[in-house]
């Protein structure tokens, strides 16, 4: 196996002596005898020509130097959300998920040796269940978008129907992902109007909803930040035609807003990232998916589920994966989903985050974000030629605005010159959003940051 003296910190038996000793034990003269069943022509003569090897010290320098070309929230003021939002992460959350006992474990297939992870995941499910006011939450999906796709498939599995109704101002990325997910089932996704208050057009929804409607999906707060005041009516319309009501909600908003379970959601989805996960250039994120505690609905659910039980002697409480007969490793082609590896460690972070903030911390955070959003809208509204917000409704964390006569793209480019990432250009979403920017304000933005943003926008109006 090449020259003697090869050593590598990650290969335990890399010295020639140890290897030869092991091969002797096997009665094999040369390591390549173990590849004797591989057609010779496929064996590479030389190792692949890729970068490396570098020492640990060099890897550090190389990766850090490459990444230093990024401009992050340290150099820029980021007022951008839309699916990943800038938030502060308490140090204690990072501490918890740095524990290598969590970090370097596999899926808890042996519950007796994995009670720590299983308990933490059970707590995640339980905490999110309280937050959304539903009884069942799975132990995570990849992100909000895939959770929406899986929720639509789940609705179809539950009632066999083929139409899904979504609001006009749904996140375009979530919609695109959901479309990919439902296409093989032949489901049809149609959209319902929302008016200038962001309210769902109830008449049109009644007209669209029929006996072939698998589910009506609504997001609250909406992708564009407004609170959908008649969301309860959408749920009633769904139930009137016997279809499921799916609600997507950003989780911190539930510190002040009524939880989806309380207004009739059968399935809930959301994004866990605001609850203690870094933006990480978009991943890992964590999809939230839960439902009512109806056996048939739970059995139609994708993903892993942890349950509380006890040891066989009935002496101690214990946790384990439950209803595995829905999953791919047991049910194979009849599984509810193919999902296997999910975002477990992210779910532990979310559990730690919710445990830290608790009842009063999460409420304070939501009030904080609501207040800063409102303050920012009020501050911007003093600027000439601005229209803010574009929906006449209360907003949470995000809102839309436009500067008359300025294209969204040009506006954002100008703001970038001030060191500000001003939001997302949403003008292509709909005619009514021509020139519109979606801006995000959270607890990470100080009053000075908000003022700097407003001044930069103001300077455009002057020029």
């Amino acid at each position, binding site marked *: 196996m090449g020259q003697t003296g090869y050593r*590598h910190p*990650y*290969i*335990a*038996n890399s010295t020639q002596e140890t290897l030869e000793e092991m091969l002797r034990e096997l009665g094999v003269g040369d390591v390549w005898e*173990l590849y004797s*069943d*591989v057609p010779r022509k*496929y064996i590479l003569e030389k190792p*692949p020509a*890729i*970068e490396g*090897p570098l020492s640990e010290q060099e890897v*550090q320098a190389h*990766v850090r130097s*490459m*990444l230093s070309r*990024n*401009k992050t929230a340290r150099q820029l003021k*980021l007022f*951008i959300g839309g*699916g990943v939002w800038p938030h*502060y992460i308490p140090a*204690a959350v*990072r501490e918890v998920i740095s524990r*290598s*006992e969590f*970090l*370097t474990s*596999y899926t808890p*297939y042996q519950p007796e*040796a994995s*009670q*720590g992870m299983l*308990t*933490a995941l059970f707590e995640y*499910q339980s905490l999110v269940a*309280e937050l959304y006011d539903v009884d069942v939450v799975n132990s995570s999906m990849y992100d*909000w978008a895939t959770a929406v796709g899986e929720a639509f498939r789940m609705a179809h599995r539950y009632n066999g129907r083929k139409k899904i109704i979504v609001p006009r101002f749904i996140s375009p990325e979530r919609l*695109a992902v959901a479309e*990919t997910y439902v296409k093989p089932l032949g489901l049809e996704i149609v959209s319902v109007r929302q008016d200038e208050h962001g309210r769902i057009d109830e008449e049109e929804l009644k007209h669209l909803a029929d006996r072939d409607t698998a589910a009506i999906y609504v997001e609250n707060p909406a992708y564009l930040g407004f609170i959908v005041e008649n969301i309860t009516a959408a749920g009633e319309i769904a139930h009137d035609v016997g279809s499921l009501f799916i609600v997507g909600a950003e989780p911190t908003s539930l510190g002040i807003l009524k939880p989806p379970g309380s207004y009739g959601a059968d399935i809930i989805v959301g994004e866990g990232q605001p609850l203690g996960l870094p933006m*990480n250039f*978009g991943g890992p994120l964590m999809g939230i998916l839960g439902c009512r505690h109806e056996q048939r609905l739970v059995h139609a659910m994708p993903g892993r*589920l*942890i*349950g*509380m039980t006890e040891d066989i002697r009935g002496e101690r409480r214990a946790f384990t994966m*439950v209803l595995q007969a829905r999953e791919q490793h047991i049910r*194979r082609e009849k599984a509810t*989903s193919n999902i296997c*590896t999910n975002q477990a*460690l992210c779910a*532990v972070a979310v559990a730690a985050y919710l*445990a*830290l903030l*608790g009842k009063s*911390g999460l409420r304070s955070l939501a009030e*904080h974000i609501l207040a800063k959003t409102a*303050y920012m809208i009020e501050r911007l509204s003093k600027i000439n030629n601005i229209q803010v917000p574009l929906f006449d409704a209360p907003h949470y964390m995000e809102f839309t605005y436009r500067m008359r006569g300025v294209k969204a793209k040009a506006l954002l480019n100008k703001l970038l010159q001030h060191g500000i990432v001003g939001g*997302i250009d949403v003008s292509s979403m709909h005619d009514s959003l021509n020139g519109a920017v979606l801006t995000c304000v959270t607890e990470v933005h100080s009053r000075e940051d908000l003022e700097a943003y407003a001044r930069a926008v103001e300077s455009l109006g002057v020029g």
Partner: protein
Amino acid sequence: MYRQALWDEPLVFEASRKGAVGYLPPSLEEEIKQAGARALSRIPRGMLREELPLPELSELEVIRHYTRLSQMNYSISTGFYPLGSCTMKYNPVVNNELAALDEIALLHPAQPEETVQGALELLYRLEKALCEITGMDRFSFAPAAGAHGELAGCLIMRAYHAERGEERSKIIVPDSAHGTNPATAAMSGYEVVVVGTDSEGGVDVKELEKLVDEKTAGLMLTNPNTLGLFEKDIERIVEIMHDAGALLYYDGANLNAIAGVVRPGDMGFDIVHLNLHKTFSTPHGGGGPGAGPVGVVSRLEKYLPPPLVVYDEKTGRYRLDYDRPSSIGRIKMYHGNFAVLVRAYAYILSMGGEGLRRAALNAVVASNYLLAKMRRARGVSLPYGAARPRKHEFVLSLSRLRRETGVRALDVAKRLLDYGFHAPTIYFPLIVDEAFMVEPTESESKNELDRFAEAFERIIAESYENPEMVRGAPYSTSVGRVNEARASHPKTMTPTWRVYRKRAIELGVEK
């Protein structure tokens, strides 16, 4: 003997104390507060939350709670984790340090391209390396996990055949395949056709010839397969599929046996997914996050899920290409699990081509070494091609042990926990009775492998001497054997604390 930590740890709900808090956001300036009050008054009362039944704990209580829980969790950092098909190799800690950098954590995925050039360059270079390692031409990093990569792959098959005006309705998977293969094929709208395994442990080529027809979209194959055997008829298999106009999908779960040695592309595979949390050492986090990039040969490139990373020579800048009209469409928000991809890139840098190749060879030596020791044990057999060398993993059958002692693979697995080792994968693949699937990886020293083999021998001896004791294992873990039947029974299934509470109140146990 091993003794896992045991804490009588209450759940956060039980430990809750009224008024406690573990974290608070900054307080607000008066005028912002007033703006908040105005906004709050605009929200209809019916839309406001009344109850928020989250627990209340101090910061220390939270830290202590999760630290104690972590101590009740087996991990690679704790000990040997020979879980077959999961490639539980060492997760280099330097990679975690890099993945936690502000340059990643504080980077929003929708920032302007000129502000994320470092991240895009990293993705570009990682793609180049993965192409070189697999023989594919392009990769998309969108998939978040192996099964997610499979989904992209099967949808690529659909898009490819559809664009050629062909309606193909079937995907073939071996009976030894990972469960995700048939589940993904079905999720992508295909009928799943199962091909059997021959006596030498490979795809039954004669049966495959009969199954393949003009309705066959493709074959999903793991090579080496889940028996740890290289598909020695791979040339013929590829020929059969391609002659029928079907595609070959490579499930990368077992790449660790051949990384740097054999390339799926050279064998004729058209689509590949990689589990970066296996072969490329990123930590599995108790069930994720992973990363499952999907790669293809050039004729399938246009179907890849967006975005792809592109280097623009004119501007000298990297950019993300979303404009891909033939693509299968988006499968996830943004550009994949970036913090995981960073770790994989750092790992590749640490190894280089030669390191990857040596890791594969060492993993295979370790596997055969352990097999040679373990197969000597009484009651143990090596089904399928007993004379053939295994690759990175092997599957024993404990069928005879069960017949002779009543001790099952499950019991031996549980008993191993008492000796301080994680159990192998059991009852998989399904074609082996009382399957016991061991994957040691290149990370474990000869001494550790010897200790594991000794523990296994002792458990076999215990099974013949005192089967009842083995059937009652484990005894050294934080809980004894778990009541799985109760856990999933409709009457007792308890997925959350609130279900537990509601049931307790119904039963009159608690108020």
